[in-house]
């Protein structure tokens, strides 16, 4: 493993790639700092701009955005008590309490160090696990891919969802959207209403830009004039002393492990990992009463967990080619628009990309620490930019970006429609991640289902007689039954939310 990884470092250590990593981390931190922009929205805007870049450089830039945003989210949580990202909600509890006690610098410093250490743990685990899983996945056929994709969607609907049935509905609606255009197996046109422009289907990136980016802007525009008050801190306060580092070591390591393990689960697992880490720290702490009032472990644990989880989410994407979160679906789009297919064959056909990307994660993680910590004051000052200026500018960039994907005005109409859909679905409390992943995984599920049925001459038994797909599907069915049973019990006892 070490030889190809060293080769990856040689590829990643070009000036262009280093600049891409730095730019990605900076842009990601900015996206994380500004509440409302979101990682998905930022990457969606950025994707079309990477067309002219080399594939590896583009992927390094996009990956940098993901990891930068995790750190940026904590800055607003601590200083302003507004989580820039959902993964920073827990950090706001003790981080902002520390800021109110005049320890904002310490909280920011520990968040950065925790993110770095746990991030490194996550990358090391990713470096070992992704190639191993990819090698095993070389033996996968259509039934196994069908089973893995179904399991991912079932876990998404059953594990974290407030209402498994509504998440299933969102997955199905997403899959319906994914069937618009040419059928993936026979190449015949479906649901296009005679519009030739729909033959190639709904562009996934444009859909994401609408659902996550434009919908967010619609939601924020009514309060674009609100001002945000930020806590102040001195630069020297950013560096924790030896005692504080010792206090944080345990929470950081535990957060890293919890984050990685939970990050492997499909869905918004990075968010759940932060809550799990917070709960664990409170339980093992000798002073649990301090939690909520500015406990250092309450910042160190969750911040470490969210970074580590982000790397774990890359494991199924890189090794199997299947994204299990909206962010990873975007990263997959980054692969696709540059003519690459992530999955087990990537390691064989494009080892330079595979190992270069993994090596660049190490580099990006170091950059995150050395660039962002000194610049934290600058990022905090970005919060003073009024949303009444920022949101219209981002909207216009989004439209220009969406147009540039296919040079199509039709895509702008699609963007607008999905902006409206995303806005109303969110207001109704529906699961947008399920919608997006349904649309993305739908064509893959359809083609693997069709191919598997053709292989077995129409017998559905093929999914259960092959050991890997059979086991995976039984797990999926079991999980779904348990989730629906639990939800039905909640519904019967009139506990919200329902099924």
């Amino acid at each position, binding site marked *: 493993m070490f030889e190809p990884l060293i080769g990856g470092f040689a590829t990643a250590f070009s000036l262009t790639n280093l600049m891409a990593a730095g730019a990605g981390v900076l842009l990601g931190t900015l996206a994380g700092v500004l509440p409302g922009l979101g990682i998905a929205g930022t990457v969606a805007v950025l994707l079309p701009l990477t067309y002219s870049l080399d594939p590896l450089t583009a992927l390094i830039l996009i990956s940098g955005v993901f990891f930068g945003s995790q750190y940026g989210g904590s800055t607003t949580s601590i200083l302003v008590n507004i989580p820039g990202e959902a993964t920073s909600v827990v950090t706001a509890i003790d981080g902002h309490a520390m800021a109110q006690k005049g320890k904002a610098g310490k909280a920011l410093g520990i968040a950065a160090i925790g993110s770095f250490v746990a991030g490194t743990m996550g990358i090391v685990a990713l470096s070992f696990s992704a190639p191993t899983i990819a090698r095993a996945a070389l033996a996968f056929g259509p039934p196994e891919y069908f089973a893995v994709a179904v399991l991912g969607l079932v876990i998404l609907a059953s594990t974290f969802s407030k209402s498994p049935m509504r998440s299933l509905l969102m997955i199905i609606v997403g899959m319906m959207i994914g069937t618009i255009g040419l059928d993936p197996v026979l190449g015949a046109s479906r649901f296009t209403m005679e519009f030739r422009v729909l033959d190639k289907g709904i562009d996934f990136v444009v859909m994401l830009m609408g659902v996550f980016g434009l919908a967010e802007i619609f939601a924020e525009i009514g309060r674009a004039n609100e001002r945000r008050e930020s806590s102040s801190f001195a630069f020297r306060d950013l560096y924790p002393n030896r005692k504080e580092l010792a206090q944080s070591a345990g929470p950081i390591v535990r957060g890293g492990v919890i984050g990685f393990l939970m990050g492997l689960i499909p869905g918004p697992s990075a968010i759940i990992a932060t809550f799990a880490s917070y709960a664990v720290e409170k339980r093992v702490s000798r002073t649990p009463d301090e939690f909520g009032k500015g406990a250092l472990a309450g910042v160190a644990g969750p911040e470490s967990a969210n970074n580590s989880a982000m790397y774990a989410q890359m494991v199924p994407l890189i090794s199997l080619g299947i994204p299990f979160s909206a962010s990873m679906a975007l990263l997959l789009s980054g692969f696709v628009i540059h003519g690459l297919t992530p999955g087990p064959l990537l390691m064989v056909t494009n080892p330079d990309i595979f190992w270069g990307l993994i090596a660049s994660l190490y580099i990006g993680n170091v950059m995150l620490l050395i660039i962002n910590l000194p610049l934290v004051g600058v990022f905090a000052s970005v919060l003073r930019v009024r949303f009444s200026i920022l949101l219209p500018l981002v909207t216009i960039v989004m439209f220009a970006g969406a147009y*540039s994907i296919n*040079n199509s005005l039709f895509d702008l109409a699609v963007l607008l429609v999905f902006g409206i859909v995303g806005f109303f679905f969110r207001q109704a409390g529906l699961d947008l991640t399920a919608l997006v992943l349904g649309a993305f995984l739908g064509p893959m599920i359809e083609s693997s289902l069709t191919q598997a049925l053709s292989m077995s001459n129409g017998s559905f038994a093929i999914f259960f007689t092959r050991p890997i797909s059979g086991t995976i599907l039984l797990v999926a069915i079991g999980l779904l039954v348990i989730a629906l049973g639990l939800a039905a019990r909640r519904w019967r006892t009139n506990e919200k939310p329902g099924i």
Partner: protein
Amino acid sequence: MKRAVNLVILLFCTLYLMLALALPMGTPARPGIGFMPILLGVGGVVLAGWSLGNSMLEAPEGTHFSGWHAVAPPLVYLTLLALYVPAMSLVGFMFSSMAVLTGLLLTAGLRNPLAVGGLAIGFSVVLQFVFATLLGVPLP
């Protein structure tokens, strides 16, 4: 809101199923192009119907209407963006962006005419340069 959204989803799923039924389903051994859509359509209608029924059983939502001053900005914003697409094909990206950006900035609450004009013109020119000249995108 929840009920209205659920109703729209049910209508969408019903329309989808009707269109899917017109496609050849094939057989399990040789699935046609309608095989998967029909399965999805049936599942969608059942789940959407259940979801709508469930939302009807839930306690009625309070009216969140807090006056036109709260609803107007997103509506005006949306209208401007809806006009942006045809405007782009009529007068080109740069001039349509200048006009729409002016409207968006005013809607978002920026009141300084100099700032609005400067940002609208300056930002549109910069975007035209970045996308058309640097990235080679053939903007309308």
